[in-house]
């Protein structure tokens, strides 16, 4: 193959294709394809990775035995533990605390703050992180957070949008908590000093997004999660709440009935530590790094499903675990950024998906699963995608339209992160469209909870992406940062109450792990798989083939 010639970031042959997009742009300014009917939605969804044949199997053990789960998820739920009961000495307790929080994204961090606000002394809280505090999906949220706080909006509208997006399978009590707390959360963030985009007069600036009936999306440029999270982390540090970094939890501890702590593992030295706690909150986020169905992902390096694996072993019930969210617009080119997110806010601001012939082929703001399916159909069924030099397919996202609709200079102001990401590869998203294809984005289901964040297991709470029910089968944009903040708060308050009522010392044991192993053996699960996996592995095949484990 001859060396490719690049013109402003694109190889020559692809650059030529852009002409077709430019030519039709004028006509598309005032044309938006109509939204699909429910029937059309059902039709296109058949090609969605969740509904396309294969990819799933029935779980053989645990509280959700018999339920369908993606193979990659089932592999981890049907895996053996990292530690055997006799290998670790749990009689020496390293940290004795009231509330243990596992995972410090938006959910875990806000849980700590609200537990503290509810009367738990800072030194009676411990937050442990797999990586650094903030190396998380939370910090990457680009687009925004929903809250119905405009005069024309209402919590009912927010509820209906949420339920419709979730295919009417959301758990009503938690979905209700989500929408009713949203304005309160926004107020809390403003008071802590988070800087949201504003209108001229100081009102919060709000935008549409996929599946929304009213403008309800609050953003902080395209760094919403970064801004929300760093404000919470700053507050957390300011209160001097104890935390650990590079210390993933690798197993929970129980007294037989209740969760009473966890085993942590020093990622760098390999030493384990024992935490005893009166209440435990799992806030470990999602599972993008499992690369379900072989998709690339938008998720951070540690998004490996650990929290669910641990909780399932103590008997926590899961729900909607079969529903995976693929974001319609991940980067398909250049190779260095494949799978990275192009925020939905781009479409919310006027960018259109366009096929190889320069046609706008889908309403830009369908719910995510519908939009993603339409793009897959365009690329693989109608063959109207663009093929990249590495053999990926994608459609155009016509970003220059944004400035035609909102005025010059708008992209730079609203999407500095996007500009930066592409500029590194010589592409100017103000002048040229970019290639996109769906990417694995979000864990729709997870551990079931009540509106206080309590699971069916005593002593165990969950908050954030690790939980299931709020979003049903499909989450809307901006409902997940919100979910973290709402249920982080509720879990923080609820654990505080529990702890105050709870006297006496807890026993800690790993018997449940032994039981789980027995169940696996009885179910005939024969494998060498171990879980949690903690981190994915991207080492080169050549280097791996010659690796010797010496130490």
């Amino acid at each position, binding site marked *: 193959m001859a060396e490719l010639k690049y013109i402003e970031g694109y190889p020559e042959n692809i650059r030529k294709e852009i002409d077709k997009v430019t030519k039709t742009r004028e006509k598309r300014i005032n044309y938006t394809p109509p939204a699909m009917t*429910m029937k059309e939605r059902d039709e296109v969804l058949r*090609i969605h*990775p969740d509904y*396309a*044949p*294969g*990819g799933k199997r029935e779980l053989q053990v645990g509280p959700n035995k018999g339920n369908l789960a993606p193979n990659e998820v089932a592999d981890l739920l049907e895996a053996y533990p990292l530690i055997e009961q006799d290998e670790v000495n749990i009689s020496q307790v390293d940290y004795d605390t009231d509330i243990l929080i596992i995972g410090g994204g938006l959910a875990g961090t806000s849980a700590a703050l609200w537990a503290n606000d509810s009367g738990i002394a800072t030194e009676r809280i411990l937050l442990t992180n797999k*990586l*650094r505090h*903030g*190396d998380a999906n939370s*910090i*990457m949220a680009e687009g925004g957070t929903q809250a119905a*706080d405009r005069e024309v909006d209402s919590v*009912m509208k927010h*509820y209906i*949008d949420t339920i419709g997006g979730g295919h*009417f399978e959301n758990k009503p009590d938690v979905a*209700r908590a989500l929408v*009713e707390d949203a*304005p*309160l959360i926004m*107020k809390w963030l*403003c008071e*802590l*000093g988070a*800087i949201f985009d504003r209108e001229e007069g*100081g*009102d919060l600036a709000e935008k*549409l997004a996929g599946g929304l*009936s009213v403008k309800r999306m609050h953003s*902080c*440029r395209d760094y919403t999660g*970064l801004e929300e999270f*760093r*404000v919470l982390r*700053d507050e957390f540090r300011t209160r*001097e709440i104890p935390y650990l970094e*590079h210390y993933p939890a690798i197993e929970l501890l129980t007294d037989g009935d209740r969760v009473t702590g966890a085993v942590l593992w020093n990622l*760098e030295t390999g030493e384990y530590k024992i935490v005893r706690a009166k209440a435990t909150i799992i806030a470990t986020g999602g599972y993008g790094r499992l*690369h379900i169905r*072989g*998709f*690339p992902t938008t998720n*951070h390096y540690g998004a490996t499903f650990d929290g669910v694996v641990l909780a399932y072993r103590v008997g926590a019930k899961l729900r909607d675990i079969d529903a995976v969210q693929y974001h319609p617009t991940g980067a398909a080119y250049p*190779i*260095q950024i*494949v*799978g990275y*997110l192009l925020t939905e806010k781009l479409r919310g601001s006027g960018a259109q998906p366009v096929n190889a012939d320069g046609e706008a082929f889908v309403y830009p703001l369908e719910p995510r699963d519908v939009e993603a399916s339409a793009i*897959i159909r365009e690329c693989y069924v109608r063959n109207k995608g663009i093929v990249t030099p590495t053999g990926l397919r994608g459609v155009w996202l016509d970003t220059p339209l944004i400035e035609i609709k909102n005025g010059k200079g708008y992209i730079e102001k609203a999407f500095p992160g996007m500009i*930066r*990401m592409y500029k590194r590869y010589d592409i100017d998203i103000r002048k040229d469209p970019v290639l996109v294809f769906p990417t694995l984005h979000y864990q729709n289901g997870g551990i079931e909870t009540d509106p206080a964040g309590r699971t069916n297991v005593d002593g165990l709470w969950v908050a954030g992406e690790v939980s299931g029910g709020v979003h049903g089968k499909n989450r809307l944009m901006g409902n997940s940062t919100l979910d973290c903040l709402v249920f982080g708060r509720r879990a923080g308050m609820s654990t505080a109450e529990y702890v105050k009522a709870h006297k006496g010392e807890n026993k800690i044991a790993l018997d449940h792990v032994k039981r789980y192993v027995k169940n696996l053996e009885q179910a005939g699960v024969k494998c060498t798989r171990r879980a949690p996996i903690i*981190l994915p*592995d*991207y*080492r080169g*095949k050549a*280097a*791996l083939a010659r690796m010797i484990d010496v130490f």
Partner: protein
Amino acid sequence: MEDNKSPIMDRIAEANKAATTGIDAKDIENWITIHIMGKAYKVPADLTILTAMEYAGYKFVRGVGCRQGFCGACATVFRKKGDYKLQTGMACQTRAEDGMYLVQIPFTPAEKAIYDVTKEPYEASVFIRYYPEVTRCVSCNTCTKACPQDLEVMDYVQAAIRGDFDGLSDISFDCIQCGLCAMRCPAEIVQYHVAQLGRRMFGRYGLGVPDHLRKRVKEITEGKFTDEMNKLVSCSTEELRKIYTEREKEPE
């Protein structure tokens, strides 16, 4: 078994293999050599520093987080072949280039001040109180040159000294707190902590809680929507579906 197969899904998975399971040398045509902490490695040409190191056999347990330029965990310093300049960048965002030699700085020792934004006066003195070293800035602009986000770091430090909260917030907003500026600063200022304090002050006092938000929170606490919500949550799926399909959409 037929209905358990999806050729389209298989094709998608195949095309994404390199990004999901690690790179196989046989798929690669162009190669470069980079020096990781002095050791030479031959790696594929189209990678970032992060993925090049992984190709070389490194499994990260530190020095990586988001992999997409948001978290600031993968700060790296490097020189290029034949270039005297010491450069900085994020490993996940910087292309690996032939002849590059590099090391990661996955941690910045830096003291964060303890304050309570609800109690501080909204004036320039807040910076002097908590980060008195800001006044030692010699305007050398080294921080600006080090910033992987291309922020005008020196300008926001100057804005802090002037007590210009709005300006500081605007200039520093895209900061990912990677620590590279602080590592290079001759005056030993921790720029990103200064900016964090400034932004929180601006958010709380400069912008505050808008009236429409305050009003909505009040309505909710007073139970204005409770009855209607009670009705909604007890609707059947059929009723909800109807409400959903018939709901009006606000124009763009």
